[in-house]
């Protein structure tokens, strides 16, 4: 029971802190999951990768952590705690906004939050990179993926699947006795 309450509070808080999107809370999420729930950085990054392959918002992958920690109920609980608070806040503010409209202060807050959220996204990159880039091969794969996605219009899912498959193949080949 305590686990469930803690899980709901944790993901509810992450939801309200996710300014600029889910990537902003990746670092915090990884640390909490590792320290409180003993989910390794490797598992974290694997589950994150599954999210990248999923259709729709990538952060639906939080359900997997919920499932891992507390079964089907945990998955539902984490899903609700992660998506409900921010959605409710947005709904409520949206209604107020329509009455107040655009103000200079609103634009100031927005301009101020933008660099913070990019800084937090960099922390997200750092957290994922620390767990994912564990060998020269993985670093090369990441750089190739970065370049392809930045300079082409190929759907990222194909890039990730292609490079992931290639990486697995090379790793497998390297592990064979020569």
């Amino acid at each position, binding site marked *: 029971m305590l686990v469930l309450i803690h899980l709901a509070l944790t993901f509810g808080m992450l939801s309200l*802190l*996710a300014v*600029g999107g889910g*990537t902003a809370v990746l670092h*915090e999420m990884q640390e909490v999951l590792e320290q409180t729930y003993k989910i390794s950085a490797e598992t974290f990054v*694997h*589950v*994150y*990768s*599954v999210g*990248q*392959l*999923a*259709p*729709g*918002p990538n952060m639906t992958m939080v*359900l997997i952590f919920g*499932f*891992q920690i507390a079964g089907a109920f945990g998955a539902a609980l984490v*899903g609700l705690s992660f*998506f409900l608070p*921010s*959605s409710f*806040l*947005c*709904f409520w503010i*949206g209604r107020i906004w329509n009455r107040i409209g655009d103000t200079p202060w609103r634009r100031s*807050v927005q301009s*101020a*939050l*933008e*660099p*913070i959220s*990019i*800084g*937090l*996204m*960099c*922390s*997200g*990159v*750092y957290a*994922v*990179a620390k767990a*994912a880039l564990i060998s020269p091969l993985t670093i090369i*794969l*990441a750089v*190739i*993926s*970065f*370049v392809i*996605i930045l300079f082409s219009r190929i759907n990222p899912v194909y*890039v*990730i699947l*292609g*490079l*992931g*498959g290639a*990486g*697995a193949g090379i790793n497998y080949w390297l592990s064979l006795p020569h």
Partner: protein
Amino acid sequence: MNVPTVGGDSSNSNHETANKPSLWELFFEFLIIGAVSFGGGIIAYEKILLTEKKRWLSDDEFMAALAISQTMPGLNAVNLAVLSGDKLRGVMGSIVATLGLLIPGCTFVMVVGLIYLENANHPTANLILGGVAAAATGLLSAITYKIGHKQFKEFKALVILIVTFILMSIVSLSLPVVLAIVAPIAIYLYRPKKGGGD
């Protein structure tokens, strides 16, 4: 497909009342977006649906909703579903649009997640996901760069960005503490200028 079919009203300014979807239609259209938007770019799908395919919102209404979605915490694509759902069909519209957007992804991650958890120690699963994770890192860096490239070039923004990163990743403060330190300073630096802002 782009031509409004209801009532022959083609003026862009007052189409919004003439063109309200049923809850079922709203749910179904967002469900499709949730199912086909592989590899991100959901906002683009939503924009096409709302302003071009169905013309439920004008461009201005869409941009206003997008601005709120980006300012508020939570995923931008989800917030946008919340706001446009509310705009079109009130509370229930908000709920069905959001559910539609999330259900396909949730189903996918649960299925794949279960397979992963059952094979977590399987060498092949780890090999593949190891490669996928490396490529996903590249993707995440590219997205961060694409979204943030303006911030990297502006001195004030760059300082805030770097301080945020250092407090979070190097000093390892918790996220609420980082926000409590950086947000007031950033808001002060970006406060509205007196005598008419930009």
